[in-house]
């Protein structure tokens, strides 16, 4: 090999390693870009309105002559909605996961797991659409309400949407428990069900907690499906009333907003982002402790 060829090869190598370094570091850039843009766009309105009035004001009337920008109704709706979705979705997902991970035969898993993947892959607008056509009218007739579009409808749609992620992460956590635990417990005379619920589930509890937190993150960030079933009136949350979530507050007014109203919408997004960052931090801690990889 002559000298010029070697230096040519060296320079290709240097260029390649620089390019890969840039491609790696650019991801930090993306996160910073999102943070910086949200803070630049979101902070001014919070300062103008006043952080206390903004976060704890109970009235949102952005287009009124004397506009009010209190987002407490949205924050509480998001929290209640997410909590409701977890209350319904967690038991359903947890028991399904234990069944699939421990009891189901290979054949059953072979059929059911693709179905759960499908549930995870269905676009959120499709959930919203079905919720709008099936759930909302049935809630209206079942509870004798003037309109079925309510927090309750949103909770059910969210519960269905977080179900696949709860099931899948829980299955991974349950399967990560060493088989010796199971064999030991069986040898001591516990039957299968007792073994699963008193030995394996406690051993997998960090992973299952991670599944719950993942579900919380999904539910609090969901916009389109909720927008189609929750009614979108800026009320304080109540189970059978039309409500607006943090996400839908941003989405529903963005297209016609202007001035301080628009800035306030970005502030709502900033608040949502802060929530999500806290949830992500919790999730990372739990995943590390559970020894489960995020899928």
């Amino acid at each position, binding site marked *: 090999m002559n000298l010029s060829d070697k230096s040519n*090869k*060296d320079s290709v*190598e240097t260029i390649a*390693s620089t*390019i*890969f*370094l840039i*491609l*790696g570091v*650019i*991801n*930090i850039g*993306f*996160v910073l870009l*999102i943070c910086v843009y*949200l803070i630049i766009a979101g902070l001014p309105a919070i300062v103008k309105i006043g952080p206390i009035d903004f976060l704890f004001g109970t009235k949102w009337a952005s287009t009124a002559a004397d506009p009010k920008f209190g987002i407490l109704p949205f924050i509480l709706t998001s929290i209640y909605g997410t909590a409701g979705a977890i209350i319904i979705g967690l038991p*359903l*997902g*947890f*028991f*399904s996961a234990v*069944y*699939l991970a421990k009891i189901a035969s290979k054949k059953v898993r072979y059929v*059911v797991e*693709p*179905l*759960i993947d*499908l*549930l995870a*892959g*269905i*676009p*959120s*607008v*499709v959930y*919203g*659409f*079905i919720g*709008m*056509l099936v759930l909302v009218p049935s809630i209206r007739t079942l509870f004798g309400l003037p309109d079925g579009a309510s927090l309750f409808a949103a909770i059910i749609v969210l519960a269905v949407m977080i*179900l696949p992620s709860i099931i899948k992460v829980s299955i991974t956590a349950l399967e990560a428990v060493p088989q010796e635990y199971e064999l030991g417990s*069986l040898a001591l005379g516990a*039957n*299968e*069900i007792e073994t699963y619920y008193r030995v394996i589930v406690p051993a997998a509890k960090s992973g299952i907690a991670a599944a719950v937190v993942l579900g919380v*993150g999904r539910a609090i*960030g*969901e*916009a*389109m499906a909720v927008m*189609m079933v929750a009614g979108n009136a800026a009320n304080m949350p109540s189970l059978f009333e039309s409500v607006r979530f943090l*996400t839908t507050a*941003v*989405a529903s007014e*963005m297209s016609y907003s202007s001035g301080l109203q628009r800035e306030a919408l*970005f502030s709502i997004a900033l608040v*949502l982002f802060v929530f*999500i960052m806290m949830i*992500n931090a919790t999730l*990372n801690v739990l995943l590390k402790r559970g020894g489960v990889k995020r899928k």
Partner: protein
Amino acid sequence: MSDNAKPSLQQKSLPFGRSLYSHALQSCMLLCIGITVALVFFLILYILIRAIPYFSWEILTTKPSYLRGTIGVLPDILNTIYLVFTALVIVLPLGVGAAIYLNEYAKSQKLVKVIEYAVETLAGIPSIIYGLVGMLFFCQFLSLQTSLLAGSLTLVIMSIPVIIRTTQESLKTVPNGYREGAFGLGSARWHMIRTVVLPCCIDGIVTGCILAAGRMLGESAALLFTAGFAHALHGYIDGITSSGATLTVALYVYAKEQGEFEVAFVIAAILLVLCFITNYLAQAYGRHMKKIKQ
């Protein structure tokens, strides 16, 4: 699982409390898995049964016309294809490159941790926030206006974590001996990666692409403010620079704002089928590759 070693549930010697506990939990599990499976079947059947009467060649191959009062979904299908194609072409080198850096090049463990944390953060950010930032950055700051291009760039940032994660996983399955062997023969790093490592993990990259495409197909909140609502029929170059509704956005607009449920059902059925296909491909491809490796 040791199926033959398990004692049967119906042992008569169990005290009443324990057998009640077991049976209660077991029925609970059967009930829950039953509800879950029934839910999936209900969703699939409901959408398909309501959509099939409205399927026609016309609705799939025309654009909406106010003059004739007809609705067609062809522009939405094309927009979706343009959008997913563009986003995949851009995200592929970005994601694979980042994964290669993390796995093959990075020397400082601290930097790797920071980048991995950044990627995890990207994966957790809800799509509505991507939509807002995409609108501020791509549509306004880079003045791309509301266009499919702005939409696909937003989707690029959104789906980078999927590509990085799947590529990284398959990079980790390449045995270190391959790398050491290549180095021992005098290969430089990039040459080694290009000729030895990458060919071994094509499968992971393809799976990542399928998963990312599936996610892009279903995305709507991020596209609402970046890609727009238009239903015009365009070629690729015109289409990518002008505003256009994807299938999901079109479904939202038809169902929520215009009350056109027939076409909304047709779109929902198309999305369901696409989702089924991407899931199936990802699984089948993964299984196929596992077999080849063994």
